[in-house]
């Protein structure tokens, strides 16, 4: 698992790579926010199949539409 980078310099670099300049004083909140995200935790909870498809959401939505009432 690769967590979202928390090193301020890498955040600044990531933003700069897409054309957004961050002011140093703004980085602390970004750090806090990214720490809260911890996106990699879902990977631990639900191991991702190598061949899983983004469209799986639509299929699962239909698969679970029928109730048992």
């Amino acid at each position, binding site marked *: 698992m690769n967590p979202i980078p928390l090193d301020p310099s890498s955040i600044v670099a990531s933003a700069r790579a897409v054309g957004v300049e*961050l002011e140093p004083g703004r980085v602390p909140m*970004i750090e806090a*926010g990214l720490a809260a*995200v911890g996106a990699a*935790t*879902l990977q631990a909870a*639900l191991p*991702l199949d190598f061949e899983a498809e983004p469209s799986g959401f639509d299929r699962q939505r239909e698969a679970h539409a029928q109730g048992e009432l």
Partner: protein
Amino acid sequence: MSAAELPTLTAALAALTARKVSSVELTEAAIARATAAQPRLNAFISFEPDLALAAARAADQIRASEGATHGALLGLPLAHKDMFYRAGKVVTCGSRIRRDWRAGSTSTALARLAEAGALHLGTLNLAEFAFSPTGHNVHFGDCCNPWNPAYITGGSSSGSAAAVAEGIVFGALGSDTGGSIRLPAALCGVSGIKPTYGRVSRAGAMPLSHSLDHVGPIARSVADCAYVLQAIAGEDRADPTASTRAVPDLIAALGGRIGGWRIGLAQGYFDRDLAPAIANALDEAARVFGSLGARLVPVHVPPLDAINAAGTTMMWSEAASAHHAWLAERAQEYGAQVRSRLEHGTAITAIQYLRALKLRGPALDDFCRRVFGECDLLLAPTHDQPAPTRADTDLADRPEAAAVLGALTRLTRPFNYLGLPTVSLPAGFDGNGLPIGLQLVGRPWAEAMLCTAGDAFQQATDWHLRRPGVS
């Protein structure tokens, strides 16, 4: 009963049909309430009383014409979050960047409400670019909670919930990317439906996060919400994500019985750290559902922190993508908090975003198997703590803002990622006199069941009829 005293949209429709009240009378009452409340609540961004009155006169003429056919909402004054595009009209999106921007086309949701005959009284306050759960707005001023202006409305559909709770309009559109319909509905003591992802077209609604954005109604009662949702739901060529699935008759679903339905009492994630007043409201609501013949089934909900993490990854990435050009060129025009939240997204990699997206299907499958294998509808709180004050949550871009904002929507965000239909119902009051909201969650496309169950609950309770300054 005078126009100003009609408690709900359905009551107003009945009075219009019986010709006990006119659309002009309803609209004049709405204008009077809006004018009186604006200094205290700041619910409106734009106000069009003359246009609304002209439309009301036309609606009354149509109703007076024997044999004339008309839409289901003919002559009802509504107002909507200022992020639904109307051709030729300024749509600020609660922002400085779009303060003078005029839409080139009309959103599908507004067009369908117009086809149904609804009137448009004005546009309603919201969080800047719908990207905050509190109701603060540094550009247009905060929208204040009608129950106590010192407290937040919840957001981002702050003006929608406040205007409905104050009794200004009978219903309002909101959008919900992480709880923005349900949280303000809960904290202002009104009802709100976030439908299944794909049930309502987002065409012409300002995008925040296209994978998580939902459009839906806020109104006094679930029955009122059903009328608005019925009008706006359904396939739309302008939005390829809008489902082609037939929309059920939500009006027919009202008044139904729920005897034998299994209501899941969410345990684990949803009863963690609940404030006592909210826990008590939840227990009392369960008792009401039991008295209506439902079977109460404890359901252990899997941990959803990870789902929230993935949802946040998607939200921040997609929002940063949508705002990328402005973020690079007009960053100073954003409020500090929205700017900081958008900046988060620029640091998330494409790999992380796509992994969060790919996990959505397995996560939905896992949740449905575990939860809806045990129950038909899940009952859970909309929020775990009482409404906070505006002062306590006025955090701009301070370091603690991310955690505070995230905590406000801890119980609503999972259903944006999962795309499940959810209704928030008023269910009590906290020690400060602020409303408490509870959620009912259904399987995909189960809006009719939600309307039946929510309406049954409201037939047995009167929380949705309480009004600020009256109860």
